């Protein structure tokens, strides 16, 4: 991805100060220091527009969706379905009925592994996935492979954390029923060339499931350009509320799938002997949906779209360009993943020799800096990198170069405490 904007102009273009004013939590202090929120790959903070959209539902017209014939239910149902249409436009889905609201990406990926996988993956089939996957796009396929008697093929990364495309292509050419692939690595911030990979997978006849939990918040995601069959992401990582998530699937596949959960709202008719399923997408939305969360996600998408995903991505790369050289200049500090800005989002995973990531995160917290320390739900990748854990700083549209400097200062202070 070409980066043309200079760091200063990218920031100016984004007007970060104005954006920050929209996020009440960003003015909080931690241990007497201004909060520096760099754990966005875990969850993002929420702008007032999202909080207000949700409060308006509860205060002005709350009612269960798809059920009441009174005005409140009709208004809430309309707002819920409008949110679905916003999601469809956001990822360029051909039809809104292909958007299924779930709790998070994990639930969406499990929905596919259960509702599609169990009827379509047979003994001897090959399931191809990668060592970059978050556990949510790895364990469901590993377990499906065990249950179905299928073979699980796990593609490696090179020493810079890039997917071994040669190996992936070769394995796909040997035939595959499923390719489960992350768009962007949550542990390293590497962006995979999904569209190209999908073409190989399609030649092999594979159905392709893309985990977009780390890409949808930070880059433009276009399911038609990617060419995949299913794609899932979480709302809470992209300014939306916790409990909002999406799985998109091709209508032709979703229509032939059995439901994932049974219950209210997902049926069209139930007799003692048998049940018939509702139409898409409601066939997959059993019980009362988290409709207020979905409406909140719609507001988050409005907020992101008004700014523009490409500008957000450019801003994050500018932060990365500012931060990476400073981190790499630290003695004993290793940055995992590619050191260049190509094919990357604003995630930096690092380790300082002699300081365990948990100690690092504790010391950074003293300076107000919130980062993630751990295995990032990515055990196979940590094993591949030969570390038990890393410290991960992940950026978003409201972060500044000054905050990156606070991080670097805090890392230096941690090194002093540990004498390394």
């Amino acid at each position: 991805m070409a980066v043309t904007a200079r760091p200063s102009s990218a920031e100016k273009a984004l007007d970060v100060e104005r954006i920050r004013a929209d996020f009440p939590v960003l003015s909080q202090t931690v241990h007497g220091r201004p909060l520096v929120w760099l754990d966005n790959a875990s969850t993002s903070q929420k702008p007032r527009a999202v909080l207000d959209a949700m409060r308006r539902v509860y205060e002005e017209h709350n009612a269960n969706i798809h059920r009441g014939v009174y005005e409140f239910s009709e208004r809430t149902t309309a707002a819920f379905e409008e949110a679905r249409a916003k999601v469809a436009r956001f990822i360029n889905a051909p039809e809104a009925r292909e958007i299924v609201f779930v709790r998070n990406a994990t639930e969406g990926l499990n929905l596919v592994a259960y509702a599609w996988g169990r009827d379509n993956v047979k003994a001897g089939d090959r399931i191809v996935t990668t060592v970059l996957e978050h556990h949510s796009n790895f364990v469901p396929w590993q377990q499906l492979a065990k249950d179905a008697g299928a073979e699980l093929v796990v593609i490696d990364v090179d020493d810079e954390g890039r997917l071994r495309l040669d190996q992936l292509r070769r394995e796909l050419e040997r035939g595959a029923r499923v390719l489960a692939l992350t768009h962007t690595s949550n542990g390293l911030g590497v962006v995979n060339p999904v569209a190209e990979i999908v073409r190989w997978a399609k030649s092999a006849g594979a159905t392709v499931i893309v985990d977009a939990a780390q890409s949808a918040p930070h880059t433009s995601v276009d399911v038609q350009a990617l060419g995949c069959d299913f794609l899932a992401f979480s709302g809470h990582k992209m300014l939306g509320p916790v409990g909002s998530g999406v799985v998109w699937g091709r209508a032709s596949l979703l229509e032939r799938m059995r439901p994932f959960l049974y219950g209210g709202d997902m049926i069209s008719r139930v007799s003692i002997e048998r049940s018939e399923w509702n139409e898409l997408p409601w066939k997959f939305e059993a019980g009362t949906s988290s409709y207020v969360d979905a409406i909140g996600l719609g507001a988050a998408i409005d907020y992101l779209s008004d700014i523009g995903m490409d500008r957000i991505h450019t801003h994050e790369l500018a932060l990365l360009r500012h931060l990476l050289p400073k981190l790499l200049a630290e003695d004993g500090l290793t940055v995992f993943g590619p050191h260049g800005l190509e094919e990357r989002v604003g995630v930096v995973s690092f380790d300082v020799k002699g300081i365990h990531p948990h100690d690092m995160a504790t010391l950074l917290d003293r300076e107000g800096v919130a980062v993630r320390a751990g295995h990032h739900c990515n055990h196979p990748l940590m094993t591949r990198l030969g570390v038990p854990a890393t410290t991960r700083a992940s950026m978003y549209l409201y972060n500044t170069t000054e905050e990156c400097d606070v991080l670097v200062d805090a890392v230096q202070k941690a090194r002093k405490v540990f004498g390394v």
Partner: protein
Amino acid sequence: MDDLYRDYILDHYKNPRNYGELEGATHHYHDTNPLCGDEITMFLLVGEDGRVQDVHFTGRGCAISQASASILTDEVKGKTLDELKGFDRDHVLNNLGITISPARIKCALLSLKALKGAAWGLTAWPGEEVKQAATE
């Protein structure tokens, strides 16, 4: 001075006491903290009089987990297994002498869990073997 990473904590982390495998150990117990990848194995050599003649530990992980193990082993020699079984969380936290936040309590107490497992004659926590077998 940092209130958590005090000099003696960092000293125990960088120069752990009683570190390394213990040849001829009568008891040993391995445990991990999956959240952060901390690992501790406790080795005990218990004599015929029922008292701990020697104690060692191996492990890797954060300063809190490793210093806690080092400090804990310093007071184990000469104790009976029943005395070790009586060690509790407050005892370990008091000995550490620092205030541990809730997110780090598991790090601080991993060594106690490993020590008690060894004292009870276990090699893994009851149920773990069953759980492992079920998920394989």
